[in-house]
Structure formats: structure tokens, C-alpha cells
């Protein structure tokens, strides 16, 4: 630490500030407040204007404010305080030997103390076309003016102009908002799957995306810019790496910022990511200090204003010889887009020993998540209702013990601090009899209590008795409190919920997906009040399947919600290698296929080659990196994935039937092949096996399959619900039909019924035991129902009969198979 000394300039030190931005001027203000006479001050600014509030550029762009409204210090302020402002003249060099700064104009200024407050530079992604006119960043007033000019100019055809904003972070979204209010058609292109992923979790990011789309913006997530397109020497749009092109007359790059350190580096001051400073904001040169976004303090660079207020205070304290020291800041973020309330602070990623308290109020569009560890708030994300943001942030910064108010914490300050009301049951008890409990069905507290008194002693009984909580479920907690209050400890637990993340059962979830037209996992979680931020390993795969089944062709499969086997299209084995099973239609093969299988087994080092119970050939011991290559080889011989790994149609086992067997009554092999061609590729609640036997001798063991056909003289017996697994179960006879076509139609209808009705991971055997074979027979006895079910099955098959191996062999999702890098021992450097 190096205390300022007095110099012989009438006791005044010469203080020079580089950067007329938020931190530079604030530092000067703080200093003047402590010692108005001690310094002779000169401020250099690259921008040709006085100091203004940079964060208000967003409202200026949106037309909610004028530049005059956001000026912090007018020209008079500089004059009144005897400050020389050199604006529009960037400093180009710091000469530490002679303690002078030299500006672009050649002007030089000696200093005793220098403050570097150069802020940040917008990051420009190095793609072709980045320097074209019409490509702008979002950092200062000049940028805003360029954007406004583009918005005013409109498109080439006189229509509204089009803008692409690259980057769906805070800045990008504020730019997009402003531009769309100015009448432009805006597309936001974001690399990550979640908007503002550094501040928001998946759920809040999804709500935000929905809202912005409702406002007419196009939001493309997971979109990587390849180049910027040009026409007539001006920007004409962008091209994404997946080939899509988006035309635009304006491209805004808002992908991030980098501390502006060039000057400091040139001067030989220590710089890492930012200019390295100590707790008094002093750099490696004792005469030079730095504040704001350009600095790195205790390893951290900040990109928000709150920390720089603290930095400026400790810098000023130090300059007047009363050092206090800056200890770093915890930051919080709010998005300044009118009508969207969004707040995020601290660590919201969840971790060990930390608990998530999640509240989702779908009716109001509210999502709140507070992360608590050791009885302390460590993070919060609020969407839709941010009124309590500052309260949570305060609890977080103070590290206050919240055990006493834990139960009511998520309901906000008014509720949690309400003394007696801190017990949610007490709050419910205090409600009047005619207070509304269930908004969807208009049920009052009195009605719910009467229903419970009338014998409805479980949540489900209440749901069917008076309809409370039977629709969106947002009042489930209230109903449960009423049950607890009315019955004392006597609440019967309802049917099993899907998993610990929700109070809904599988049936509820499936029904509500259709009723409320829920089309994405985060949407289901929001609307159905999931209590965890992103679910768990049991609900994610189930939701993925339910959505896939409900919206064929439309729902985009979520690979990260799939179990490894389905993600890698191969079966994981106990040693972490995989086994690969090509499809053999109806169990048939030929020399060419066998040769290709043998070659592949040798080439990729399969350690075991086995014939499976389903009449296919299984190659064991393949490494995940080799999977795309072995698939390419098998594809080349005409074979596709056997789905031997999936909750999907696996095999259709057949016997030889009438073509060869002396007992055979029908062509069981031929029918098996036809059935397999009609049903392969379909995703199911669980694995699904089919067999076709040519006569009642049943050599294909069709009576322990999910769907079995026994050919008889007069036609086909159709059997369902068999299982050869832990609980051996023989099939029930579903029906008898006369023709192959009828057998195929019934097979499709049965499969679709199972697909639409069963719980995820429920085999047909347990499904039928749960719902009763009679109800299955009844439904399928109605020809109209059969026709509709089969038609729905065929529609979904249109979208699922693509060989998943082929796409991977062509290179899709190579990241799932390749290592991220490799570490070799000698140099210990990763290879790409």
C-alpha cells in the first residue's frame, strides 16, 4: 500500500482519470465528497459527450427515455468542480516513467495519480462479414443512434426493417426489445439452449422465451452463427452453422464483453483477464489505480454497476488516507424489458446440501426458486413476480439464518414475516369460509371442508368430490392444508405420484399434457408446478416420452432426458462398453448380412457374438467412440438399428410357418416381417415384444409376448399382455380375426392404446393387470375406436421410422460419441 503524498502544487495533487464512464465519474464524485480541494482533476473520455448512465441506453433505444434524461453529470458539474473534461479524445498511451498520459490528439497530461476506468469492449465474434456496415454492437450512444437510424430506414421494400440480434443475454434481449418496439422484425440468435443462461435456470429461461415470442420476436436457441451475409456492400443477414439463413438489414452483436485492458497492457501494468487491483483498487504500479469493468479484483471481473459503486468508495477512501478496502460483491440482475419481471441473484445452480424451494403459479405466470444451504439463502431466480427480489437478495448478502421462516420463505416477505402466519396451515385456517381455494373450478374453502367432512379423506377423493385441485393443480397445497386441518393427522396418502418432483400421478400428467396442450418439458414443469428446477432421472424420460406420444412429428425429442441406451442407440453393458444389434426382419437374414456382421464384429473387436432371445445377433464390447463407424458399416450392408436398447418395439419373433413346417397353417414368418415393418421405430412406455407362431404348437412363444399372434386354420388369435420377465405372465386372448389385414390393424390399435394409456416403464403385463383385460377388450371391440387408434399409430410412425443409426453415422450429434479431448502423459496437453 502506498499512501498519497502532497506535492508542491499548492497542496493539490494532479489526478487524471481515463474513462468518462460510470466508474470514472463515480470515483471522482466520491473523492470530491471526501476532499473537494485536494486534487486537480482531468478526465479523458473517448466518447464526445458528458458522463451518462450507460444502463439507461436500453430505455433510450426502446423510446422510453431521451438522452437528456440519462445524463448523470452535465457540463456545469465539470465546470463547478474545476474538472477539465477532455472528451472525444481517447488516451493512447500511459508513460509511467514521466507519469504522463498521451491522447490521440497528441495532448499530454502529467499525473501524480492516475485512475484507469476504461470499462469494457464488446466482444465481436470472428465470423466473415463482421466488419460490414450494418453490423453494430450495443455499448454506447453511438451504437444506439446507429440502431435507431436502421429502424427508421426500414427494409429495402419500404416495409419494416429486419434485425438479427446475436446473443440472448441481458444486453441482447434489451436490444431486441428496443428494436421491436421501434417497429423492426427481430430475430434473436442464441448459442445456448436457454436464454440468459448465466442468470436463469431452464424453467425461467423457457418462460422468458415464450413471452418474447408472444410479443412477436423470433427466438432461435442452440443457434451458432457461421457468417454474416452481404449484399451491395451492406449487411444482408446471417447464416447459421446448420445452414439456415436469416435476412436482415441490421445485425446487433451482443455476445459478451471483455475488460478493456489494452492501454494498461501497453503500459506494462499487470493484467490477467482484467487489470489486476488490490482491495484499494491499486494496480501493480502504486501511482495507478483502476476501477469498473476493466478491473479484476480477487480473480473476478464484474459486468454490472453495483460492484463499481463499492469499488469507487474504497478507492476514494484510500486516496484520502482512510483506507477501508473492497472485499468483492455479490451481484443480482434484473432485465429491463417493460412488462417482463425477472430477477436473479447468487448461486442458483443447486448443489449438495442445498435445497431448492420452488413455487410455480401457472395461472399468474409466476416462477420462483430460492436456493437454501445450511439455513441460508444462497441464490434466487424469480420470474413474473419479482417484488420480493430485494428481500431475498438482502437475506442472501447478510447470510441470515432463515430456519424460522423456512416454511413460508417462498411466499415472500409479507407472508414469511407475518409471525403467526408463518405456518402455512395457520394461514389457511385464517381464511374465511367463502374464500376461493380452487380458481379453475370456483370452489370455496367451505365447499372443500364440507367435502372432506363428507368422507373425502384424500387429495384424490377431494378432487373427484368437489373438483378442487382437479384442473391445474395450483391449489393442491391449499387443499392439502385443509385436509390436514380438518382431519388432524388422518390424511390418507393419495395414489403414487410420478416422482418426488410433483404431486401429480402419471395419469394426471398424461391427461393434462393433452388438456392444456403442453408441448415441452419446461412447460409441463411450469404448468404442473414441479417442485424441482429441472426434474430428476425418473420424470425427465417419462415426460419426454409422454410429449413424444402426444405430439408426434411436432415435439422435439430431448436427448438429455433419455436414458443412455436410447441416447447412444446401443445397450450399455456392465463394463461401460455397448452392444449393437442390427434389425433382422422377422428373424430372417442372408449370407450378405451375416458376412457384414462378421466383418463388423472383427473390425470393431466385438468380444462376444450372441444370438438373442428375440432372434437377432448381438455384438458385445463396442466402445462408444466406435459406434457411428460400426453403424455405418452395417448400414452399408442394408441393416438398420434393431432398437434392442429402447423403450420401443424390439423384435418380432417368428417360427417358420406354412412355408416349411409340416404343421404350419399360415405364413407366420411373412406376417412377422410385415408386422415388424409396420411397427419398427415406435417409442413405447416400455420395451415391447411381438411374436407370430404358425400354429398352436407356438414355437415362437407368442403367449409370453406383449403382442402375440397364433395362426390357426380359421385365421389369427391375437394375444396380449404376456411377459417372460421376473414375473412370468401368460397372455390374455384379446380377440380372433380372419385376415392378415385385420390382424395388423388390431396390432396397431392395441399398440397405440398402450402407448397412450400406460405409465412410463409399465410393461403391457402390469398395465393390463392395472386397468383390467376387460377394459382393453371393450375399447378394442369398437371398430371405430380401432380405426382411430390405428390411424393415430400410423401418423406417429410417419415421424419415427427413421434409422437412428444412419443419422449418427452421417455425423449428427458426434459430440455424444467423441471424447472432449485427450490427455497424454508426456506433455499433458489435451488433443482436440
Amino acid at each position, binding site marked *: 500500500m502506498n499512501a498519497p503524498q502532497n506535492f508542491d502544487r499548492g497542496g493539490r495533487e494532479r489526478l487524471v482519470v481515463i474513462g468518462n464512464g460510470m466508474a470514472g465519474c463515480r470515483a471522482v464524485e466520491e473523492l470530491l465528497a471526501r476532499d473537494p480541494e485536494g486534487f486537480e482533476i482531468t478526465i479523458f473520455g473517448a466518447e464526445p459527450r458528458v458522463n451518462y448512465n450507460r444502463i439507461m441506453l436500453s430505455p433510450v433505444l426502446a423510446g422510453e427515455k431521451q438522452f437528456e434524461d440519462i445524463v448523470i453529470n452535465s457540463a456545469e458539474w465539470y465546470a463547478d468542480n474545476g474538472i477539465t473534461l477532455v472528451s472525444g479524445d481517447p488516451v493512447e498511451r500511459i508513460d509511467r516513467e514521466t507519469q504522463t498520459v498521451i491522447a490521440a490528439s497528441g495532448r499530454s497530461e502529467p499525473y501524480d495519480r492516475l485512475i484507469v476506468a476504461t470499462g469494457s469492449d464488446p466482444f465481436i465474434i470472428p465470423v466473415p462479414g463482421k466488419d460490414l456496415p450494418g453490423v453494430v454492437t450495443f455499448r454506447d450512444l453511438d451504437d444506439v443512434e446507429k440502431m435507431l437510424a436502421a429502424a427508421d430506414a426500414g427494409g429495402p421494400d419500404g416495409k419494416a426493417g429486419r434485425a438479427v440480434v446475436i446473443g440472448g443475454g441481458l444486453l441482447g434481449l434489451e436490444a431486441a426489445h428496443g428494436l421491436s418496439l421501434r417497429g423492426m422484425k427481430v430475430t434473436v440468435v442464441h448459442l445456448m439452449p436457454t436464454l440468459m443462461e448465466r442468470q436463469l435456470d431452464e424453467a425461467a429461461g423457457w418462460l422468458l422465451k415464450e413471452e418474447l415470442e408472444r410479443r412477436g420476436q423470433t427466438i432461435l436457441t442452440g443457434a451458432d452463427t457461421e457468417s454474416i451475409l452481404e449484399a451491395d456492400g451492406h449487411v444482408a443477414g446471417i447464416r447459421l452453422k446448420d445452414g439456415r439463413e436469416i435476412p436482415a438489414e441490421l445485425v446487433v452483436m451482443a455476445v459478451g464483453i471483455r475488460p478493456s485492458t489494452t492501454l494498461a497492457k501497453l503500459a506494462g501494468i499487470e493484467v490477467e483477464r482484467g487489470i489486476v487491483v488490490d482491495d484499494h483498487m491499486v494496480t501493480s504500479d502504486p501511482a495507478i489505480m483502476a476501477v469498473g469493468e476493466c478491473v479484476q479484483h480477487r480473480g473476478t471481473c464484474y459486468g454490472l454497476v453495483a460492484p463499481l459503486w463499492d469499488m469507487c468508495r474504497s478507492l476514494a477512501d484510500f486516496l484520502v488516507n482512510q483506507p477501508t478496502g473492497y472485499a468483492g460483491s455479490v451481484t443480482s440482475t434484473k432485465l429491463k424489458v417493460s412488462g417482463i419481471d425477472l430477477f436473479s441473484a447468487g448461486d442458483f445452480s443447486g*448443489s449438495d446440501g442445498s435445497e431448492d424451494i420452488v413455487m410455480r403459479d401457472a395461472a399468474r405466470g409466476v416462477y420462483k426458486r430460492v436456493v437454501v444451504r445450511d439455513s441460508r439463502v444462497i441464490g434466487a431466480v424469480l420470474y413474473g413476480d419479482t417484488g420480493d427480489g430485494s428481500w431475498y437478495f438482502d437475506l442472501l448478502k447478510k447470510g441470515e439464518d432463515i430456519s424460522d421462516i423456512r416454511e413460508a420463505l417462498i411466499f415472500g416477505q409479507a407472508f414469511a414475516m407475518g409471525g403467526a402466519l408463518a405456518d402455512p396451515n395457520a394461514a389457511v385456517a385464517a381464511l374465511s369460509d367463502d374464500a376461493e381455494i380452487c380458481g379453475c373450478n370456483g370452489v370455496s374453502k367451505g365447499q372443500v371442508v364440507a367435502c372432506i367432512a363428507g368422507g373425502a379423506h384424500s387429495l384424490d377423493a377431494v378432487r373427484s368430490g368437489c373438483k378442487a385441485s382437479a384442473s391445474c393443480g395450483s391449489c393442491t397445497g391449499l387443499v392439502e392444508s385443509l385436509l390436514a386441518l380438518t382431519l388432524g393427522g388422518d390424511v390418507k396418502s393419495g395414489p403414487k405420484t410420478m416422482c418426488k418432483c410433483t404431486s401429480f400421478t402419471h395419469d394426471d400428467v398424461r391427461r393434462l399434457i393433452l388438456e392444456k396442450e403442453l408441448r415441452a418439458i419446461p412447460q409441463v414443469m411450469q404448468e404442473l408446478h414441479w417442485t424441482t428446477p*429441472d426434474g430428476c432421472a425418473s420424470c425427465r424420460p417419462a415426460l419426454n416420452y409422454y410429449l413424444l406420444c402426444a405430439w408426434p412429428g411436432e415435439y422435439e425429442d430431448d436427448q438429455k432426458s433419455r436414458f443412455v441406451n436410447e441416447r447412444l442407440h446401443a445397450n450399455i453393458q456392465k463394463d461401460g462398453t455397448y452392444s449393437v444389434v442390427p434389425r433382422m426382419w422377422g428373424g430372417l437374414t442372408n449370407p450378405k448380412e451375416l458376412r457384414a456382421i462378421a466383418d463388423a464384429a472383427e473390425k470393431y473387436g466385438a468380444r462376444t457374438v450372441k444370438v438373442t432371445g428375440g432372434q437377432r445377433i448381438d455384438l458385445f464390447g463396442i466402445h462408444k467412440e466406435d459406434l457411428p463407424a460400426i453403424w455405418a458399416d452395417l448400414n452399408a450392408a442394408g441393416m438398420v438399428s434393431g432398437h434392442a436398447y429402447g423403450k420401443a418395439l424390439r423384435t418380432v419373433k417368428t417360427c417358420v410357418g406354412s412355408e416349411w413346417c409340416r404343421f404350419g397353417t399360415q405364413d407366420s414368418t411373412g406376417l412377422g416381417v410385415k408386422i415388424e415393418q409396420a411397427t419398427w421405430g415406435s417409442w413405447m412406455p416400455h420395451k415391447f415384444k411381438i411374436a407370430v407362431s404358425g400354429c398352436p404348437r407356438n414355437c415362437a412363444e407368442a403367449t409370453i409376448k406383449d403382442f402375440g399372434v397364433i395362426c390357426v386354420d380359421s385365421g389369427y388369435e391375437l394375444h396380449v399382455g404376456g411377459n417372460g420377465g421376473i414375473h412370468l405372465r401368460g397372455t390374455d386372448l384379446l380377440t380372433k380375426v380372419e385376415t392378415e389385414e385385420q390382424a395388423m390393424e388390431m396390432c396397431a390399435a392395441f399398440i397405440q392404446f398402450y402407448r397412450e394409456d400406460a405409465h412410463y416403464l409399465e410393461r403391457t403385463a402390469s398395465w393390463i393387470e392395472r386397468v383390467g383385460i376387460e377394459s382393453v377388450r371393450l375399447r378394442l371391440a369398437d371398430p371405430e375406436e380401432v380405426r382411430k387408434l390405428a390411424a393415430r399409430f400410423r401418423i406417429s410412425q410417419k415421424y419415427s421410422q427413421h434409422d437412428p443409426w444412419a443419422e449418427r453415422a452421417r455425423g449428427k450429434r458426434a459430440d455424444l460419441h467423441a471424447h472432449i479431448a485427450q490427455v497424454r502423459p508426456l506433455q499433458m496437453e489435451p488433443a482436440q
Partner: protein
Amino acid sequence: MIGKWLDIGPVTQIEPGTARTLPVDGGEEIAVFRTMTGDCYALVNKCPHKQGPLSQGIVHGAVVTCPLHNWNISLKTGEALGDDKGCVPTIPLKVDAGRMFLLREAVMGHASGAKAA
């Protein structure tokens, strides 16, 4: 300072909610995870139960569910959660300017791998 840390490339190589593998010659393969909220962690790629490849599990919150027998392993501490007991070594990881760095000595330090308790 960077010398202590091994640069394994940009964070964007890992889709949030997934993991990728990093083989180490003469050491244990490492699984590098990225949570849905974008945080990164690294563990030895072996479940403390029966050595399942954790990199292939489903990631939720800061937890991965092992693909072999569904143990839940904390990405932050490597501990098995719930009633299961066991721990897999964690590798210190930091993200700087969008790139991931692993603590060099930890990368080579795990010849023995996971241990069940």
C-alpha cells in the same frame, strides 16, 4: 498460474445437462459435466458402486444418476446421495473466459479411481 491448469477447451463443447469424457493415458478417464444452469464439474468417470460410466447418466440439478443402477452422485462432492454410500474423486475445474481448465495434478492423481465405502 495457467500452468497449474490444463485447458480442455471451450465450455460450449458440452451441451447443458450433459457430460463428455476425457481419457487420460496412465490415469482414470474423467467425466466433464455441465448442468442445465451451465455450471461445470469434473469427476472420475466411475461410479463408486460398480464403476458405471457416470458421464452417460442423466444430469439433473448438480446431480448425475448413474446409468447402470441409478445411484445418484453429487457433481460437487462426488458423494453418493440418499441411502447409498460411496464417493468418486472430483477434479477441480474452473472456467475462465469461456474455457474450461482442470487442475493438472488432480488429472493425473487418480490411478486408483473410485472407492466404495
